[in-house]
């Protein structure tokens, strides 16, 4: 006979450096380097086309005003329209490529997180709030979008384009270039100002929004109580007062935060105005200093047209700065998940069993949990085929850990745990899995090929025949998200039907009736009895007398140790 044994490979996970949010974002970006570079190049193309457009405009105007009458400008107009077309294409390419990169990155990040959470396994996940995890894997992964789709490409452009424009202006008139340069050292200052402003704004807003939402949700959650005491009108007034107070407070922060970007705008506007006036006075001949005397309508107009473009990439960047803050915030939470080391994994190997009757054999098995030390063991237990074992003991004693060990969700730190079956044990706990889909979809989780007849038979054995007969759509009846429409007992029996459908010889049940009332519990117990009739082996962690009465043996666990065993 063949059996499976848990074998632990050496695990180096602990040697891995812990990931920081910034490094993670960088790694994610590296995975899409090609598209992100393409997006930046396309953005550079947009900038170049804009420069050419402005040059062409200046040349056309110069020809019209100072050239010979009837000087040919038609070809220049055609070239200008051509450049505009190319620019539009480049802009489209920049945005769509960056969007594609962002989508790919988010998909990959979510897959990596799911892989990691799956690797952490049911044991480690049980300590986390699953609704919180759900929103992290959806909302927070989505919050990475702006960083990759907008901020990163813009960050590179914000350095490259102003430099290019500066070089052109320098070639045309070095004094005008100096005006831009004077603004240039202020650029890092702007960046810092805008950055700090954005961050402070973000933090302050976040804290205030959380407080406000807390107040609102507190009132809304308790709305039944408010209804019962006829206090809803007062509460509505309170909600308004809280929101209005929030407005007054956050306006104080906002007034200051907006100042930093106003400063950026101010410098940009003033620089343009100064250059316009300088060029004008130079053209009039009022300025005799330096290169001013050689200013022409062409060079003057080009400088004037390019000056706003010098500041434009920076202004765009400052608009996308909150994308960065949002992504960093999300990355921090997500990296915390990735930094959690998965429990040691193991492969199940076939081994020959000496005893034909034993299905489960634990010898001196211990389990350690990271940070909590040894939580179970040493436990020795042998379970024969067809036996029903009840595990009892106070909560936290290690009953669930023992089941998880047998299920193979955790590896023994010492000793050995063997299950002499090629099929994995079936599992059921107090929160049965109900997926969005039909009843049949839910059943097929246990056996993807199950026929309608087999599913109906399984439902009947699980005590759901009555419900099924009342449903006009039968097996194709949709059940809502997380079992909406099913009572707790019905959901539990649906999970039981899956056990009937599977051909697992061993069934592990962790407090299967903990959240059920007595009637439902009795029905579940009756179904379990039918499982026993089929010759399956059951190990049930439970406190409930009805289930303990079914057991052939009762094993009591206390503080991780097996303290007594009674034969029922």
């Amino acid at each position, binding site marked *: 006979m063949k059996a499976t044994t848990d074998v632990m490979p050496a695990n180096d996970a602990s040697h891995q450096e812990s990931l920081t949010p910034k490094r993670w974002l960088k790694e994610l970006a590296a995975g899409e380097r090609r598209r992100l570079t393409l997006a930046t190049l396309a953005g550079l193309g947009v900038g170049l086309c804009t420069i050419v457009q402005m040059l062409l405009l200046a040349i056309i105007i110069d020809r019209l005003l100072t050239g010979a009458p009837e000087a040919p400008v038609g070809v220049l107009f055609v070239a200008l329209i051509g450049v505009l077309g190319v620019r539009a294409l480049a802009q489209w390419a920049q945005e769509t490529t960056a969007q594609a990169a962002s989508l790919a990155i988010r998909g990959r990040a979510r897959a990596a997180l799911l892989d990691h959470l799956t690797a952490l396994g049911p044991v480690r996940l049980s300590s986390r709030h699953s609704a919180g995890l759900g929103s992290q894997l959806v909302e927070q992964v989505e919050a990475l979008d702006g960083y990759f789709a907008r901020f990163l490409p813009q960050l590179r452009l914000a350095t490259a384009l102003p430099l290019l424009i500066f070089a052109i202006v320098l070639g045309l008139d070095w004094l005008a270039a100096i005006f831009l340069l004077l603004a240039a050292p202020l650029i890092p200052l702007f960046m810092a100002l805008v950055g700090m402003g954005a961050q402070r704004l973000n933090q302050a807003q976040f804290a205030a929004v959380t407080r406000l939402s807390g107040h609102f949700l507190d009132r809304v959650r308790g709305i039944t109580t408010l209804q019962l005491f006829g206090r809803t009108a007062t509460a509505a007034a309170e909600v308004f007062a809280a929101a209005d107070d929030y407005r007054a407070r956050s306006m104080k922060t*906002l007034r200051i935060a907006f100042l930093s970007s106003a400063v950026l705008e101010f410098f940009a506007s003033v620089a343009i105005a100064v250059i316009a006036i300088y060029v004008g006075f130079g053209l009039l001949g009022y300025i005799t200093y330096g290169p001013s005397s050689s200013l022409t309508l062409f060079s003057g107009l080009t400088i004037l047209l390019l000056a706003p473009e010098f500041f434009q990439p920076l202004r765009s960047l400052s608009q996308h700065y909150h994308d960065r803050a949002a992504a960093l915030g999300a990355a921090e939470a997500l990296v915390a998940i990735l930094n959690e080391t998965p429990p040691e994994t193991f492969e199940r190997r076939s081994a020959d069993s000496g005893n034909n009757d034993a299905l489960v054999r634990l010898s001196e098995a211990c389990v350690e949990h990271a940070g909590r030390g040894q939580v179970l063991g040493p436990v020795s237990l042998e379970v024969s085929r067809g036996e029903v074992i009840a595990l009892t003991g106070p909560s936290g004693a290690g009953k669930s850990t023992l089941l998880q060990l047998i299920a193979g969700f955790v590896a023994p730190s010492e000793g050995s745990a063997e299950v002499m079956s090629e099929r994995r044990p079936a599992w059921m706990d107090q929160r049965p899995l109900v997926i969005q889909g039909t009843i049949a979809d839910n059943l097929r989780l246990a056996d993807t090929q199950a026929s309608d007849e087999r599913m109906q038979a399984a439902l009947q054995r699980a005590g759901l025949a009555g419900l099924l007969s009342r449903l006009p759509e039968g097996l194709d009846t949709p059940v809502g998200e997380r079992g909406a429409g099913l009572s707790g007992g019905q959901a539990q029996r649906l999970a039981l039907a899956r056990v009937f459908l599977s051909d697992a010889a061993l069934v592990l049940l962790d407090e299967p009736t903990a959240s059920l009332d007595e009637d439902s519990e009795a029905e579940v117990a009756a179904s379990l009895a039918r499982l026993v009739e089929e010759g399956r082996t059951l190990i049930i962690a439970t406190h409930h007398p009805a289930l303990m009465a079914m057991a052939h043996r009762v094993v009591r666990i206390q503080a991780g140790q097996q303290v007594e065993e009674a034969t029922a």
Partner: protein
Amino acid sequence: MRILISELRPWLKLLARRRARMALGALLLALTVGAAIGLLALSGWFITATALTGAMLAAGMAASLEVYAPGGGIRFFAVLRTVARYLERVYNHDSVLRLLAELRSGMFAVLARLDARALGQRRASEWLNRLTADIDTLDSLYLRLLAPPLVALLAIALVSGLLGIFLLPAGLAVGAVLLALWAWLVIGQACLGMAASTRRVATLDHLRGRILETLQGLAELKSYGTLSQHRARIDADQAALYADQWQLGRVAALGNALVGLGVSLAAVLALWLAAEAYRAEALSGPLMVMMPLAVLAMGEALGALPASFTGLGATRAAARRLNALGRSRSVLSEPESPAVPVAGAPGVRLRNVTLTYPGALTPALDGLDLSLEPGERLALLGASGAGKSSVAALLVRLLDPDQGEVLRDDIPLVDVSLDELRTRTAYLTQHSELFDDSIAANLRLAQPEATEASLWHVLELVELADWARELAHGLETRVGEGGRQLSGGQARRLVLARVLLLDAPLVILDEPFAGLDRPMAARIAERLDTWLCGRTVLYLVHQLRHDGSDPPGILRSLTLRDGRLG
């Protein structure tokens, strides 16, 4: 289109109430755009004028140019742009936050009229988060969808007017091109993005649900070896979400590219027409240059439109959800001419009542008949889910039945005003619901004018008075979010005290002693027995134990099973 407007109408009406504020905000926005147009246009005019004058001076011709007014004008526009932008941002954010306060309290008032069918949904807290997010989506209706297109129209009128003064054909042509562009950016973008952006929230919810079920059911999925098949479902959901996002991204990119192309083409057109006029000596050189530059500044006015209108569907979906809430059959009706119930212990009757919760496969109450005589104490027994709380909810109109009727002293409950009914019925619910406020404030929910002495009195009844006296802040001690600072037993007794403070002739107590030890339950039961004299009482209990821990004075008991009396 008409449907869209009717969906947004209630929210637009709300904006209309602050018409002056919205108009001022839009004006500041327009001033910002106008200043940008002025800055570029005047600069172009100025440079050209100076160049031409300079050339004439250099050629030895007599020429002069007044430079100080245009120079001053340029500086003025530069400063105006910054100042107007700053003021606009501060003012409009203030408006949005004011709106948020109104939306939240308004929505709360709508929620307060909903029945337990809507409020008691399985995923209440997530549903509430969704609701809050929808309100936040709608508060930006003005700043994203209303003001920008209006200001853009204003700017188009300004630029084409400016051009038209000097050269009518240029004004008309540029106006026509920009108007067509505007129409595309608002209507075309909205149409292209509508379906995908309307679906967004639903698709996200679906994906979240899938991920949650995977994480919660990981043990089962692993043991059946079907985890990878299930992961394929997540991948499919994510693919659907991202197909929509890809579509929206491309549409928005198209719009952004069109803004750049359209505005530049309009500028080229203006230059072409102006050049023709210049050559025909119908237009001066500086004015010719001014024209394309003024048009180029329009990029700023139109730039925000593509992103906003591509995502119009998200706002529409939020409005739709909130509208549906206000119109749902879950809104409890108020009688037009309310009947006044008589004082004293009432008799209560449920006649052939049927009740089904949304999405439930079977009814919660199925043709139920039940009556309580005045002053009677009846225990309604049954497992959880048998329908006990539904009966209680019917008696205080947290719910109305789908069929049958509920009478109190032979008056149908729907004829009594909600506040009247509820202040005359004390209902201790299964969950001990407390607010993040002081002990006194939580008690005074039942009776806002209650004196300190009466608060202490009810606390004595539930044996909390000694504990409260020991507290540093006494009755002003805060209980924490959801009463988290209290133990389960203390919270239970505090909500019981609150129900006693209401002093109502009909009392419904759901497992009043849950979580209390037997001696304390017995002591409280004794005091309760006296207090309950002369009132009609309905107990909701799992089962009677007959060991002294049952609620006091039960004369009759009935058992509910699957929504019927068994």
